[in-house]
């Protein structure tokens, strides 16, 4: 449509434009015919100047050679690309240096091929073709008044003919009847996707929730390494830390993305401070964290309460835990409360104990909500 507008606009505007061009007139040059044709589109070629006033001048020849050379280089690099693509060792092998050059060589040869095609075309167009300045008229402000009126009148007439004004019942009935259709279209899309976020209380439970046994008792979840082996207090030296996962099937997998926990063995004096602060509580929690530690061991959720990244950079000297994503910092010895950065909530603390066999277990699931914050968190 847009194309046609440009095409036809020229005709109805130009009075100075000759209506017919005699394309067979031998007295006019082809360029004059081109010029006349351009005028039909409201285009005036006002300046058309060959780059080289004298044909076959030294500069012209040099420019021709330059462009030719570029095309030859295209062939050279293109061939190099194909040869490298086929012949160069490309499969990954430990310690193979040649293989590492495969991708760079492909990129460089392919890039140079395309670049030289580009430069050759550009130089040809810019340096060998005549310079020109053409002027085209603009026709802003939309369609002619007549066309506007025509469309307006036709549309108004159509509305009249439909007669919604005369027959209001029709309009009302159509509106009332069609309204549910919008829902009909939306329902399958929305309905299929929608998923209750609170099914199984999933926002508030993690893999650490004790499992109800068949005999009515509950089994506490062990703290395990990524490979599933349980951990004894002796496995973490003072000042050390370890990422632990719930000892359930798939506990270390992404199916339990809220469960990764950082087990920290504080040095005795830090441990005393942490315990005292645990007793004091944060003021926000509605539960007591007084007995959450085990000796000098303390465990916090690794999932940042800000955006859910693993807060994993533990600075021993200051007992701060830093999240590398947005630099929230949590003070481990004071209920892991946020001390800097955009996080507004303490890391939830996991209540620790040791079972009969001497392995760490979680006394219960996290009491506070794990992970990024959301609207309906109480």
């Amino acid at each position: 449509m847009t194309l046609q507008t440009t095409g036809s606009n020229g005709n109805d505007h130009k009075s100075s434009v000759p209506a017919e061009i005699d394309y067979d007139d031998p007295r006019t040059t082809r360029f004059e015919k081109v010029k006349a044709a351009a005028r039909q589109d409201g285009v005036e070629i006002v300046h058309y100047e060959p780059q080289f006033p004298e044909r076959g001048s030294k500069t012209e020849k040099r420019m021709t050679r330059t462009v030719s050379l570029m095309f030859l280089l295209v062939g050279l690099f293109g061939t190099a690309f194909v040869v490298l693509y086929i012949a160069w060792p490309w499969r990954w092998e430990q310690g193979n240096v040649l293989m590492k050059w495969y991708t760079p060589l492909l990129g460089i040869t392919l890039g140079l091929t395309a670049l030289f095609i580009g430069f050759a075309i550009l130089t040809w167009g810019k340096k060998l073709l005549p310079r020109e300045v053409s002027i085209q008229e603009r026709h802003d402000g939309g369609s002619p008044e007549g066309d506007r009126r025509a469309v307006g009148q036709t549309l108004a007439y159509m509305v009249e003919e439909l007669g919604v004004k005369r027959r209001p019942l029709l309009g009302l009935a159509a509106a009332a009847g069609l309204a549910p259709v919008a829902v009909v279209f939306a329902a399958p899309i929305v309905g299929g996707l929608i998923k209750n976020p609170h099914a199984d209380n999933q926002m508030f439970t993690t893999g650490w929730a004790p499992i109800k046994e068949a005999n009515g008792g509950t089994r506490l979840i062990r703290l395990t390494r990524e490979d599933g082996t349980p951990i004894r207090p002796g496995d973490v030296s003072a000042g050390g830390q370890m990422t632990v996962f719930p000892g359930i099937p798939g506990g270390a997998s992404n199916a339990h993305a809220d469960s990764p926990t950082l087990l920290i063995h504080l040095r005795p004096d830090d441990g005393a401070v942490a315990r005292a602060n645990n007793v004091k509580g944060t003021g926000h929690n509605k539960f007591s964290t007084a007995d959450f530690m085990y000796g000098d061991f303390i465990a916090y959720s690794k999932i940042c309460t800000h955006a859910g990244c693993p807060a994993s950079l533990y600075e021993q000297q200051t007992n701060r835990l830093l999240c590398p994503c947005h630099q929230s910092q949590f003070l481990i010895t004071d209920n892991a409360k946020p001390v800097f950065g955009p996080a507004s909530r303490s890391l939830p603390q996991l209540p620790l104990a040791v079972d009969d066999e001497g392995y760490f277990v979680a006394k219960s699931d996290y009491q506070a909500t794990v992970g990024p914050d959301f609207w309906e968190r109480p």
Partner: protein
Amino acid sequence: MKRRKIDVRTLPAKAGNEVEDRLGVATPLRGIINKVFPDHWSFLLGEIALFSFIVLLLTGTFLTLFFEPSMKEVTYDGSYAPLRGVHMSAAYASSLDLSFDVRGGLIMRQMHHWAALVFMGAIVVHMLRIFFTGAFRKPREVNWIIGSLLFWIGFLAGFTGYSLPDDGLSGTGLRIASAIMLSIPLIGTWLTSSIFNGEFPGEIIISRFFIAHVLLIPALLVALISVHLALVFKQKHTQWPGPGRTNNNVVGERFFPRYTIKQAGFFMAVAGVIALLAGAMQINPIWLFGPYEAGVVSAASQPDWYVMFLDGSTRLMPAWQINIGIGNGYVIPPIFWPTVVLPGFLTMLPMLYPFIEARLNRDNKIHNLLQRPRDVPQRTALGMMAVAFFLVLVLSGGNDVIADKFNISLNAMTWAGRIGLLLLPPIAYYVTYRICLGLQQHDREVLAHGVETGIIRRAPDGRFYEVHQPLGHDHEELEYAGWVVPKKMNRLGALGPALKGFFRPIERPAEAPVSPGHPPIEPAPERREIESKH
């Protein structure tokens, strides 16, 4: 039908006539061929975006032939030894295969990623050009809105794309995205669980992102880009003011041949640069990040550059949590403001800007002539304010890397970002405003008094003064036209023009151009209505 003798010279004409009889293309084609495009280097910025989009489509199609959008757990046994035997998603494994076990797969992956960075970069620079020159004014507001939408859809395309490999870095980004969605009041949890089909990460998000990334978003991009180009074609390109150029004409080159040739050449050049980047500079080496695990992250995990400003805003946001004490209590977490509200503003404000400016200026006219940034100081200053805001956010998105490399305290970097975000934009506004006025002043000075000649004269009474070469006849003061004013004598042709040529001067130096890149224009005699003042 007696003699079948084929005259080769008439073949093209004959073939043309056959096509014409059936399709009738000559009339529209004449219009296209004759269409005039104005020429200026800054008009090519949008084309970089278009051309890199074509590269994206081509390389992306190749990648889909090998990528498996599935989160099913597999054990890797491809060529890359360090990860052999590791459990990972099929998506990550197939991305590794694309990098190591498909011949030339890595160069395609890297070209795709680099093309995406170039695409977004070109969009931003193109938008800056449009903004600072006032090209968004009536009648082009719709194209400006489409352009802003293209940025955000490109942003989504980029995010869904780099999330697909399901590596350690992109998984972290996905988790942050889920946290952002969670933070939305009222509907956050419902939205997140609907998108992830349950709790993060679920088992289907990669498949959903895949179809969004390879079908829904590209379809939207293609549709909007088509409308964008069609509108440029229909409304004709804006042009700089200059000799012979008015609000009612287009001065430049016809579509064919020079403009087309330049486009073709420029496309190949853009593709070439992308290939060179992809070959010479490694990008997103997913095999180093390992598969995504919820408990693992490395320091310096930055998103692609066009997402970094949101990362920065998230880092700078103070921990302001809003508690609403109704019932059990409700929360608006601090991450909601920099990642949902701020982008909301950043989407709406630019789209409304053309109308706001027109309203303030009571301007309902059609504008086809561009404005130099110095001639509209308020707009230019506002734009620089936005740029300063954006830059502080981008830099803050990498503040941990800056802190590490330059040995600065991380907290100090955050505070510098917080203060800088509030302080630098107004400073940028003021400085830009003054610079604009200064540049304008200098142009007016030349118009009033002429060009500095460098000739110092001593008057009989001992005074020294510099001789100025007036531009107008008989010391008449010239009107300010909003276009380049000659400031050196050789620009007037009074001195020999600066010689061009890299190794040796080109034979015939170009005439002193009145508008750069163009030979002087002598308006056609029958078109005297063109004002010569512009």
